[in-house]
């Protein structure tokens, strides 16, 4: 399927693999549950970021930390939820959030292994099953407001927090 573009509606069948962050100890594995994004994100303004892999150099060094650092700015611009997905499972994503000191549901770390959102409605990385590096903004009425993919998945430009902030 073609990637979502601004003006499209967020699909109705989007489920992620979620292990909620309930403590800061990455050696305590949590319990996975389905996160039904299509229903959870109704009425919310959501920034959804996709990365090729948890704990990988570019995602860790340039992509994720600015989203953590500038979470307040995103909230100030009316963002209700920031979520990060990758093709890793929910356990790995949860651990990645913990070692980056994300608490609770400040930023959701989820595995895109349930409904293959990146493959079906976004972009893949062209490296095995890995997700591409991209960002989307979904508005409260369920309309996609921003959707852009890195041409080179080792770079962070259009999917970075600065680019997203300037499009809110």
């Amino acid at each position, binding site marked *: 399927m073609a990637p979502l573009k601004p003006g499209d509606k967020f699909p109705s069948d989007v489920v992620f693999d979620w292990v909620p962050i309930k403590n800061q100890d*990455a*050696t*305590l*594995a949590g*319990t996975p549950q389905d996160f039904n994004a299509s229903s959870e994100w109704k009425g919310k303004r959501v920034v959804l970021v996709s990365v090729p*892999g*948890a*704990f*990988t*150099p570019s995602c*860790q*060094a340039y992509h994720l930390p600015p989203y953590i650092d500038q979470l307040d700015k995103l909230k100030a611009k009316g963002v209700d939820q920031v979520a990060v997905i990758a093709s*890793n*499972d929910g*356990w*790995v994503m*949860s*651990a*990645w959030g913990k*070692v*980056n000191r994300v608490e609770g549901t400040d930023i959701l770390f989820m595995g895109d292994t349930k409904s293959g959102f990146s493959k079906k409605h976004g972009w893949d990385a062209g490296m095995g099953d890995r997700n591409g590096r991209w960002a989307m903004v979904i508005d409260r009425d369920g309309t996609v407001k921003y959707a852009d993919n890195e041409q080179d998945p080792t770079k962070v430009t259009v999917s970075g927090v600065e680019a997203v902030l300037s499009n809110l």
Partner: protein
Amino acid sequence: MAPLKVGDSFPDGVKFEWAPITDGDATACGIPQEYDASKEWKDKKVVLFSVPGAFTPGCQARHLPPYIEKLSEFKNKGVDVVATIASNDSWVMNAWGKVNGVKGDDILFLSDTKTFFSREHGWPAGMGDRNGRWAMVFDHGKVIYAENEPSPKDVSVSGAEAVLAKL
């Protein structure tokens, strides 16, 4: 292929992906390289255990920690290398080692994404591409122990205690 059994030779061409642990910070990513197990383990006594996934409940709670705690007992029994593998990539394996406080090459955290040792020479988990939960011991290129958990949720024959008892 059939799983290795006691008396078999360790196969040629076994490679893992390895991002060595060079510091304790799981937010500092490692740099992956190829680990040629057939070559590295030729003249060594090696304990290799496979888990269905890094950071998962069974592996984390009951499988990995006893190996870390009993590492000196393994060394006392002449084990040169303790290594764990999973189908996660080497970055995830590196981070899993770090958050468990493993330093350097005390225990090698390797990714079984190169030559798929678990699928080719061990046991899969029967859950997607995940590795099974099993343990093997190699002594100078010969298999001296190889056992797979009947239920990958349990840790018995692949646990540190069971392996130590066979050394």
